[in-house]
């Protein structure tokens, strides 16, 4: 004597259907809960992807940056910058690096005619374009020849061009930087990435368009800069190789500086992982908040099931009288609760997906709920039904049939 699972589902579904309004009201908590699970999981996915995209825009995950470590007190009083000669040595020790890009920078005033613009000037080498994955949009970038000859040339960002030249073609024009005169040889590509923060510029990369670049040698020999290079970047062959190269580079630099940590060596891959880790904390918190809303929905359901069992006491007595075993009663009510929460889950997923479209459109992030997210949401909602259905189902199955049949 056995009653099949599909039979329980049929009974459960007809119970659900014969109490449509109550079932729907019961299920609202689950709908909202599942909706928030699906929205939050997809939002987290979308934001992660966006972060990764941002890292890629900034030169990819293979990049390693060496910078002055501002938080280090430097008790040994070692040199807190590199000289050109040291950098040549470092380059020769890391042949596996794909590109090598030392930089110096200075805050300078530019003028063209009567127009002025204050910005940061970078002294760089030709590898810069490859390491930053950022090239000129017109003209040319700095060449090895410019480095050797310490040529008076400059490449400018789009904002700088617009400020100084407006609509005119800047290539070949001569601008004044302090007392030196420089020929504009190129304009960098415009960089743009939608800024999702509430505050700040629309363009998360606006600061890059304000920059200007000249040969590092020109800057050292002819500019006001000294042979004093405080930072450089290196590009490894792959993000994985970058982690190894970072460690090697750090060891080399520590050796050069008598083990004093006057420099920070950061790999973009590492930074991305750290960022993801930070975001993960928020994600877990948000996920738990949505789980809590599901639990609240579950408690509501348990409550309604208990009330419904009270109301259906006589029915339970009748079922027992005609031969239902306790397990049949237990299964009937548990199946019904799971069915209710699963139907709520399906509705929640449907609403959640349409909500994602709206949110994604608003934030201009691509938000796609993967199949795994949908399956997780469905399983969580069914699981809530299981957890909160057990106790009412046990209570129903434990009813005394004689008393149940007399229940008015």
């Amino acid at each position, binding site marked *: 004597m056995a009653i099949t699972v599909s039979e329980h589902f049929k009974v459960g579904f007809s119970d659900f259907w014969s109490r449509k309004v109550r079932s729907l009201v019961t299920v609202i908590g689950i709908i909202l809960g599942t909706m928030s699970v699906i929205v939050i999981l997809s939002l987290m996915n979308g934001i992660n992807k966006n972060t990764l995209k941002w890292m890629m825009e900034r030169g990819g995950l293979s990049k390693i940056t060496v910078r002055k470590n501002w938080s280090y007190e430097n008790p040994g009083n070692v040199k807190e910058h590199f000289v050109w000669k040291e950098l040549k040595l470092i380059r020769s020790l890391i042949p596996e690096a794909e590109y090598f890009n030392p930089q110096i920078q200075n805050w300078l005033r530019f003028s063209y005619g009567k127009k002025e613009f204050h910005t940061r000037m970078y002294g760089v080498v030709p590898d810069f374009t490859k390491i930053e994955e950022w090239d000129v949009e017109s003209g040319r970038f700095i060449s090895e020849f410019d480095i050797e000859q310490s040529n008076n040339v400059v490449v400018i960002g789009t904002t700088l061009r617009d400020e100084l030249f407006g609509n005119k073609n800047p290539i070949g024009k001569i601008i004044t930087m302090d007392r030196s005169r420089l020929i504009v040889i190129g304009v960098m590509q415009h960089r743009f990435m939608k800024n999702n923060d509430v505050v700040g510029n629309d363009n998360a990369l606006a600061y890059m368009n304000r920059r200007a670049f000249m040969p590092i040698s020109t800057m050292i020999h002819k500019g006001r800069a000294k042979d004093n290079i405080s930072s450089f970047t290196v590009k490894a062959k792959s993000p994985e190789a970058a982690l190894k190269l970072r460690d090697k580079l750090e060891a080399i630099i520590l050796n050069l500086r008598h083990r004093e940590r006057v420099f920070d060596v950061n790999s973009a891959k590492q930074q991305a992982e750290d960022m993801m880790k930070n975001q993960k904390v928020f994600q877990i918190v948000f996920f738990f908040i949505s789980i809590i809303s599901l639990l609240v929905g579950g408690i509501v359901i348990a409550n309604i099931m208990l009330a419904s069992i009270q109301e259906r006491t006589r029915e339970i007595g009748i079922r027992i009288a005609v*031969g239902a075993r306790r397990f049949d009663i237990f299964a009937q009510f548990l199946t019904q609760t799971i069915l209710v929460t699963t139907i709520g889950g399906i509705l929640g997923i449907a609403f959640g997906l349409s909500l994602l479209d709206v949110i994604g459109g608003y934030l201009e992030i691509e938000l796609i709920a993967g199949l795994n997210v949908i399956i997780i949401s469905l399983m969580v909602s069914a699981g809530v039904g299981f957890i909160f259905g057990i106790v009412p189902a046990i209570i129903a199955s434990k009813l005394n049939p004689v008393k149940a049949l007399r229940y008015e």
Partner: protein
Amino acid sequence: MKEIIKIAQLKKEYTMGKIKVPALNGINFNINKGEFVAIMGPSGSGKSTLMHILGCLDTATEGEYFLNAKNVSNLQKKNLATIRNKQIGFVFQTFNLLPNLNIQKNVELPLMYAGMSAKRREKIAKKVLADVGLSDRLRHKPAELSGGQRQRVAIARAIVNDPAIILADEPTGNLDTNSGNDILSIFSDLNAKGHTVIMVTHDPVVAKKAHRIIHIVDGLIQNGDNS
């Protein structure tokens, strides 16, 4: 005649707080296969308790109950469910149909718990409902039927599994005289076809339809005791 029920020294006590209230004080009787027996007694006499024990909805505190020569006094609840399903058909005073199910589904219920396929269930339920004259009401809900019709549905449900005994608890109590007589003649017909019918009632006119009357007063049998 073959004995279908044998009751020996059956006692039942209810515990209310610390006080033990006796409902049955050691009763004995036998019922043979194919008998039509009425159990009579005033309210509080213990006839309902006896009925629940006979129907395997409750168990005795002491004594033995043999159903079809099998001692069911100490069976597990799971096995009692099987006995209720296969050997016993209940008919109640208040019909006790499930209001959300149509009458065909109501009649199918015991077959469903017996694990029968939906197709076979439907066939059998339709046939039994035809036997009680309700072929044209298969899709109706119980609330759409008269009292007499509802009790006929309940009878159909009670006999659908072809049980050894039919237990009826005041089956005419909620019906007018005409409908009550209809129901009683159905019981007579079923009995004529070989079903054992046990009917609990307080109405002597109703009890007269049975072949034998067992009187219970204060948890003891007064006459009709054939042990």
